[in-house]
């Protein structure tokens, strides 16, 4: 197997051979450009071509908000298959996941890399649908397309088309392909423990009987005008009071100023405890390193070096750390080494197996690492 990341803006950069799989990360505006798409299709007509939009691309150990990052991979013994499904509304997320799984499912299926449009999707349901079709024995990772702090338009590239509401998934078949994953958030809870006093599914009206939106506005100050994007600075850690050790992180997705409510990326059961979280730069960078190390440790058992590294991190981390966000990708690079083809993007939701259980799920506010290799 070979892998190479090239700068899509530099026509002189090429792959050493005709790639089997090409993954493109670029700003939303580039994907909207038909010429850009046609050029990609023309250049990589023999490969499975997928990609998605983002506000920030990972290019080796650097970040670039404007770059076009192209990762090409060639496999010696691994078969690939591309499945594409529309995603007309968030309610269809589970069904879309199921449909993709049905297209890809095969007893030789080893892993799936999935890219979904980033708005109007229930990422948890999409993952659940995929899992229900292929089982937990298939490695599953990927992410939801991003659009920086704008939350306006996200795109998925597949079969030369540029989908605003769709999902593309590549299946990897055979016993030679290898995947290793890691994920970490390292956001720190702070302040008083609150109670979700008014909530309906993922929409929260009140925390400790105070309007939830007012709480966020108070903490964000002048940045409250950038809600919901600025809400990513303060995710919520929530837990069932009877199971205080089992905690999950919820990211703010949308607000309703008229109703004074906040909508999070997942259920917010009334009566559960909640605590604001914030990112300390060093902790977040340390978290990225931990995620990479977890994946690298696993890859160390393959007997062959991983060829490609896909680093998919949360846009919330990018918004918080600004230019210093690059430190987390440098931390990843320091772990996986400079010989590997490293590419990625800042997403609206990361998909990767949990570190402990290995069960794929939608993450919030994390750095996720997918290492790919192929054995003899």
């Amino acid at each position: 197997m070979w892998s190479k990341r090239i700068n899509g803006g530099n026509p002189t950069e090429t792959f050493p051979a005709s790639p089997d799989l090409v993954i493109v990360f670029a700003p939303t505006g580039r994907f909207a450009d038909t010429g850009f798409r046609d050029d990609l299709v023309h250049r990589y007509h023999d490969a499975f071509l997928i990609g998605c939009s983002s506000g920030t691309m990972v290019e080796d150990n650097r970040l670039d908000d404007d770059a076009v990052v192209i990762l090409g991979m060639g496999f010696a013994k691994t078969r690939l298959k591309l499945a594409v499904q529309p995603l007309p509304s968030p309610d269809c997320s589970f069904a879309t996941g199921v449909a993709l799984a049905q297209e890809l499912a095969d007893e030789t299926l080893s892993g799936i890399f999935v890219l979904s449009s980033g708005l109007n999707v229930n990422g948890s349901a999409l993952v659940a649908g995929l899992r229900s079709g292929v089982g937990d024995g298939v490695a599953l990772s990927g992410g939801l397309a991003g659009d920086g702090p704008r939350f306006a338009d996200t795109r998925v590239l597949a079969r030369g088309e540029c989908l605003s509401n769709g999902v593309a998934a590549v299946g990897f078949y055979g016993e030679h392909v290898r995947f290793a994953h890691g994920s970490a958030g390292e956001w720190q809870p702070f302040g008083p423990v609150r109670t979700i006093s008014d909530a309906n599914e993922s929409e929260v009206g009140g925390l400790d009987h105070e309007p939830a939106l007012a709480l966020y506005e108070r903490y964000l100050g002048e940045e409250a005008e950038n809600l919901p994007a600025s809400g990513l600075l303060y995710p919520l850690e929530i837990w069932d009071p009877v199971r205080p050790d089992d905690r999950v992180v919820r990211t703010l997705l949308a607000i309703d100023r008229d109703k004074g409510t906040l909508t999070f990326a997942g259920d917010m059961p009334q009566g559960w405890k909640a605590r604001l979280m914030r990112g300390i730069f060093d902790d977040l960078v340390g978290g990225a390193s931990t995620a990479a190390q977890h994946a690298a440790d696993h890859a160390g058992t393959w007997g062959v070096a991983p060829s490609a590294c896909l680093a998919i991190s949360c846009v919330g981390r990018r918004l918080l750390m600004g230019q210093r966000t690059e430190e987390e990708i440098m931390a990843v690079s320091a772990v996986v080494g400079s010989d590997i083809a490293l590419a990625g993007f800042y997403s609206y939701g990361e998909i990767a197996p949990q570190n402990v259980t290995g069960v794929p799920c939608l993450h919030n506010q994390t750095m996720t690492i997918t290492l790919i290799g192929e054995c003899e």
Partner: protein
Amino acid sequence: MTPSMATIDPRPSPLHQTLARQVQRARLPDGGVDVDRLLALVSETYAETDVDRRRTDRANRLMAEELEEALSKSALQNVRFKAALDNMNQGLALFDPAGRLVLTNQRFLDIYRLSEAPAGLTLDQTLERSPCLSIGTPTAQRRLIREYHDIASDPGAKIEQRWPDGRTITIERNQLVDGGFLDTVADVTEARNASAQIAHLARHDALTDLPNRTLLHERLAEMMRNARRGDRCAMLCLDLDRFKLVNDTLGHPVGDALLVAVADRLVALVRPHDVVARLGGDEFSILVQHVTSDRVVKQLCRRIIETLTQPFEIAGHHIQIGASVGVAMGTVEALDPDTMLRDADLALYRAKRDGRGNYRFYTPDMHVFATRRRELEIELRRALNSNEFEVHYQPQINIETQTVVGFEALARWYHPERGVITPGEFISVCEEIGLIGAVGEVILMRSCHDAACWPENVKIAVNLSAVQFKSGTLPALVARALRVSGLDPRRLELEITESVMLEDTASVITQLKEIKRLGVLISLDDFGTGYSSLSHIRNFPFDRVKIDQSFVRELGTNSDSLAIVRAVTGLCSSLGIMSIAEGVETLDQLNILAAEKCDSAQGYYYSRPVPLAETGPFVSRMAALHSVAA
């Protein structure tokens, strides 16, 4: 920008690394640096750092404010919590997993009379400070501390202690999830005392403090458990004669004081292991244990009667009562407590029937008699519902004119199996079981109704029982009988016996006067047999006095009877009261009565009591005889 900038070692801090990256980004193709770009990047970093600092400051400030508010709420909550704890009825002591005191509430300190209980003390150290535990012996103190110390660790394990100062304390332990424990201490002295008092009241008569029926049964059971082979015992039931009169005339407080005095005398009469109990009202019973012979029991009965017949001085009143006693004897191992009490009660009943101031031992025939009486009761109630009562009439004849002046109504019970039953066999039972009111009403209504058909100069005499006066509604009943039948009140004569006058005299006189105001005549029945107090005749204006048949029967053979008849007729004559003799069976008797100026007579000489249908012909026959004689 000088080239030397690019050589800055980035390792000292992340910001230096950032600067190094910014320099790289600003580097021009010729190796130089685009200063404007670099400054823009650096400026951006400054701005981001500043924003992050402001965010952090803001978050810290808000968090501090929120935590401060939460803390003040928590402090207030603690004050409230402490107030709530201190005002609990139970003492609380919280210990950590190492058994060290964490906190106590005020009530805990109060119960143990501790001025303080510093956190960190062990349970033993805390208890050793309590003066409540140390006022007893050192051994007792150690025992109380050990008991508390050793409370089981089961959830809700509880012990109860009696302290040297007399208090009863319960201590309950609950294990906490952190391995510590919470003890709840309660002073239950009052509750335990109240329970003991309640238990005493449940087994003792509140007035005399004698054992009640429950305790008597328990003592009987206890005696049976401990009985030696062949051991005998006696159960005495006794009842005070004329106690009701004391209660009614001198009032309940005096009656109650009398019962207490009776109880004292009874207790003084028996041995310590015998049991004197009050079963209710004026009923007492005595359980005599280890009886060696009947003679001993008879002796005790005599002493009881004799002792209770001695006058009592209560609240300035000189009170003379008596007692009747029933005795049941038995072998303890074959004893049935209920049967024994019942047998003694039957014997008491017999003693009272045989004339008060007596004692009787139970014999099996008493049971037969009681059974028969119970059957009779059942049958009487049925008879009343089935209209089995009839009235027969015995004519009363004016001795001088030999004409019918009236009839005496005499109840008859037509029993479907046993035929006609006379009043002597059932009226007293009716009185005892409370049926006399209903039976008396039937007789009075029927008599008035029947008499209304007779000639206007013929009266009807109806007997009244003393019991019928008790309700106080007799005048209303009489008025109703007259109204319903249309009978002229002057044709109705109500006969009462002297015993009626012995009851609640004031109430009886009031009712008699009320009846008399209706125009009804009142006569005194069976005169001469009882107390024959002239005061009765003086106290009430009777219209007629009836000379008892026992005297009439002996006229011509017994001079005493003649003297009595003469005295009565003479008394009536001088007081202007009519006289009548009952039980006249012979012409000789009639002639003597005529000679003694007795006004009228009734008896078999003239006629047995006859059904209504025969009354009319009898009147006519006598009238015809009179006209022939005239």
